[in-house]
């Protein structure tokens, strides 16, 4: 039997045959071909992801569910997750992005949580590359049109430009929702004798085998893959959100599952497996949009805006009436039973029968060969002495600030409604997005970040740095980190050096999560992000959620006041390796990023939280891309206030100003609070930089720029 044409490997066929005691039929093979694809089964990474710390005192629900949930206190939880939609966005940017947003929203909804905010991670190619304009415009419009219509504000994100994404743009969509802890909808509560119900849009041929499509590299004829692209309908999704939440409030559903990759099959088999029940599905009862669909097409269709519900028979009538109110199709397509047999019938004929646990969990893991490239460490060679300091400091600064990965993304975030739902305290354009919770004092802090360049130079340190950056930003803002979600965007795992990088990044991230007490509660992996022209840099993306006890505990950035003393806390030996500065000079990637120090990060985090809580500063900004120089420029532009800085240390000025990495922050402290500030940071490297004031930002021996000039580039206000 030619099982390879369904995307099934020899070992997988053997495993299926062994489990069934017979050869799988064509319908079953097609189902396994999709369910056991990389995108659905995580066969190449499941064992690696086990290295992530996933438990903690604030973790209510960890990885493996529709989303993770952390405890916000007083019986309220935040459900959140990030997901990638990379391959579809490369082929059809608008719809790929729109359906990416729609999909992650439904994951949050499936837990019974009301989606309250989104963030987007956008990775585009070189701005000069012919495809970048079209791809970026389409992706941004797709994210905006969908999120705006569905009424979920997009409150932040991360945008990166690098040639490695020329043919492989990345779209990582993050969503967070709120749910009462005693009302979480589970996927494990189905019992025999209940109804399997499909709620939402009709089923068509959209995206059939889309999951398999995401598991192979993009070929030249990717355009031929258009039939695999799903079309999103945000209006239908809004109705679905309201209907599902109404059903939950009225206690009419036993379980709920989002229909994403591999639609009906993945959602129903997952509920069956997790609940430990069997299922009989009748595909002739599925409301269809296209004529003459075959059972396997119905099984694998990725038509959007559909949810799977498990309903007790006595509640079915009320469920139907809620569906009617919201103008959604609602059909009973099967029933649950004892045992673990998952069977699909079509007009009375049994067309497929597999154990539910085999579908979701039965795929044999793949341990690809992993090998650190022989010449890997040569990239750490970096001749700092051979790098001249900037001849024209002002020009160097303006060029850094004008770098596409640095400039404010107003053209992007003004296309997003960031205010609907009336919870946005700090929105796009700021390092930390802050949401208030109505009726409560506490606020939620959100950060979404990535640093592919450090991951390229040293995957372990880069992975750790990515996690650490989010925790630093939250801590400076006064938010105690509760947990994080990750999107691991990587090229093909079948190249040993690339698989090694994936392993190392995960290890580095895990080390940082452990040291910082910030567990991974959910996540997503996207592999095979490469084309003939090249592979993407290792791009782990991290979305971290924190809790701010009250509005007074939130420390903003960009809030310098005349007369404040400016301080740099943190080691003065950052590294130019993988820095924005080095990249803006057009130099090749070289150098080794700083070593991760769990102790220093933890220490920093605690002092930063204390600084915010005790209001020991007017303004605080954790250093990230562009280092101290970028932080000074951004704060100055946003405050409308200059500063005179003297760097009284022997380190080269370009290293101090443009170096990156390590737990460091820029604070603006009113004179009256300086003793308190110094006491909080006593014992930690702390350098007084100068005084805020005037309309020029100058660093002695380096640059001197009018604040108005910086504002021209950094028009944030």
């Amino acid at each position: 039997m030619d099982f390879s044409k369904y995307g099934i490997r020899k070992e997988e066929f053997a495993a299926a045959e062994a489990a069934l005691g017979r050869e799988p039929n064509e319908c079953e093979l097609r189902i396994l071909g999709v369910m056991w694809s990389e995108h659905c089964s995580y066969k190449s990474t499941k064992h690696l992801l086990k290295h992530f710390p996933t438990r903690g005192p604030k973790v209510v629900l960890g990885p493996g569910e529709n989303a993770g949930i952390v405890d916000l206190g007083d019986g309220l939880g935040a459900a959140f997750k990030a997901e990638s939609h990379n391959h579809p966005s490369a082929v059809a940017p608008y719809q790929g992005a729109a359906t990416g947003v729609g999909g992650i929203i439904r994951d949050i909804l499936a837990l019974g949580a009301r989606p309250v905010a989104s963030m987007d991670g956008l990775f585009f190619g070189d701005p000069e590359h012919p495809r970048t304009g079209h791809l970026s415009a389409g992706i941004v419009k797709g994210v905006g049109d969908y999120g705006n219509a569905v009424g979920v504000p997009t409150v932040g994100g991360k945008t990166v430009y690098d040639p490695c994404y020329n043919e492989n743009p990345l779209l990582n969509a993050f969503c967070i929702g709120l749910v009462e802890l005693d009302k979480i909808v589970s996927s494990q509560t189905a019992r025999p004798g209940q109804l399997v119900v499909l709620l939402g849009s009709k089923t068509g041929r959209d995206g059939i085998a889309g999951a398999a499509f995401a598991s192979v590299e993009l070929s030249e004829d990717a355009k031929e893959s258009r039939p695999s692209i799903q079309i999103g309908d945000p209006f239908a999704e809004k109705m679905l959100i309201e209907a599902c939440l109404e059903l939950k409030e009225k206690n009419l559903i036993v379980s709920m599952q989002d229909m994403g990759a591999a639609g009906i099959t993945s959602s129903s088999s997952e509920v069956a497996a997790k609940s430990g029940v069997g299922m009989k599905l009748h595909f002739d009862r599925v409301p269809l949009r296209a004529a003459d669909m075959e059972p396997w097409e119905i099984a694998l269709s990725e038509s959007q805006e559909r949810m799977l519900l498990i309903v007790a028979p006595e509640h079915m009538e009320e469920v139907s009436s809620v569906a009617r109110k919201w103008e959604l199709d609602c059909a009973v397509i099967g029933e649950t039973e004892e045992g673990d047999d998952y069977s699909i019938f079509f007009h009375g004929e049994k067309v497929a029968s597999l154990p539910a646990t085999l579908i979701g969990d039965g795929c044999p893991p793949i341990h690809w060969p992993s090998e650190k490239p022989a010449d890997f460490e040569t990239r750490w060679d970096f001749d700092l002495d051979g790098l001249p300091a900037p001849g024209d400091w002002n020009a160097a600064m303006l060029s850094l600030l004008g770098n596409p990965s640095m400039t404010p993304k107003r053209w992007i975030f003004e296309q997003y409604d960031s205010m609907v739902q009336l919870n946005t305290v700090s929105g796009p354009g700021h390092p930390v997005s802050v949401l208030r919770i109505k009726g409560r004092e506490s606020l939620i802090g959100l950060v979404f970040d990535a640093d592919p360049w450090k991951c390229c130079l040293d995957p372990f340190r880069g992975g750790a740095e990515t996690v650490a950056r989010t925790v630093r930003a939250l801590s400076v803002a006064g938010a105690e980190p509760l947990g994080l979600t990750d999107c691991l965007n990587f090229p093909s795992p079948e190249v040993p050096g690339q698989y090694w990088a994936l392993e190392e990044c995960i290890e580095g991230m895990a080390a940082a999560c452990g040291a910082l007490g910030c567990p991974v509660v959910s996540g997503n992996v996207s592999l095979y992000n490469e084309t003939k022209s090249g592979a993407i840099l290792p791009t782990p993306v991290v979305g971290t959620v924190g809790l701010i006890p009250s509005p007074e505990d939130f420390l903003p950035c960009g809030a310098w006041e005349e007369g404040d003393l400016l301080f740099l806390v943190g080691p003065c030996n950052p590294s130019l390796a993988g820095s924005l500065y080095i990249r803006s000079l057009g130099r090749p990637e070289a150098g080794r990023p700083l070593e991760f120090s769990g102790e220093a990060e933890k220490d920093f985090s605690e002092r930063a939280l204390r600084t915010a809580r005790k209001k020991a500063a007017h303004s605080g900004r954790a250093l990230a891309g562009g280092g101290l120089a970028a932080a000074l420029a951004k704060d100055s532009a946003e405050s409308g206030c200059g500063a005179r800085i003297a760097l009284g240390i022997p380190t080269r000025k370009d290293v101090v100003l443009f170096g990156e990495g390590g737990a460091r922050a820029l604070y603006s402290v009113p004179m009256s609070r300086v003793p308190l500030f110094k006491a909080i940071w006593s014992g930690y490297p702390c350098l007084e930089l100068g005084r805020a004031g005037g309309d020029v930002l100058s660093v002695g021996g380096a640059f001197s720029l009018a604040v108005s000039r910086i504002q021209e580039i950094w028009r944030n206000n």
Partner: protein
Amino acid sequence: MKTAVVIFPGSNCDQDVIHAVRDTVGCEVNAVWHREEQLPEGTGLVILPGGFSYGDYLRSGAMAARSPIMGAVKEHAGQGGLVLGICNGFQILTESSLLPGVLLPNKTLSFICRPCFLSVENTDTPFTGLFEKGQVVQFPIAHGDGLFFLPADELNDLENRGGAVFRYVSPGGVGGDEWNPNGSVNSIAGIVNPQGNILGLMPHPERASEAILGGEDGRLFWRSVASFLEKGGRRHGLL
């Protein structure tokens, strides 16, 4: 003041408006589903909220304007009752012919979400009674189809009768193309009907009703209506 907020399929600012009105004025606010044919008894103010009713499909507000509830809304307006349309609500009012004009795609052909400065040009309406004439307020906008358009002769009539209630301006209150985000004719952000009981505006006052969210200018808006209704809700020229 008894308020009714209509919810159409796809409305997404309804809960925001309910929250802002309750939070500012503390009055009774009822949510009314678009399929209902009557408004709650004693309703003083009807609000058509923002969002994407019917996904903005066909034309923004077109299908919502033909909803069953609109009969009751028109009757309420005809009797001098107050009707407020915010963003998508404004679009619905023009599609229902309760207000003149039409909202076209923004001149940028893109959705725009940002804070906006508006000058309050007519304080002789139930919605703006507590503002000062010429006061500059900040309400955010968030729309893709906000270009207010009226043919020239109707536009003159509107201006002459003081129908332009809100206009996009600079923070200092000066008009100009660079302060007009969507290209609306005469930088018009909000208008009122000749009787003064129906107001439509593209910016969102409910998003400027709490300091923690960035501004409180919106509170004067709700308080103006509450004050008007408390005084008996009678106006020169209305029943």
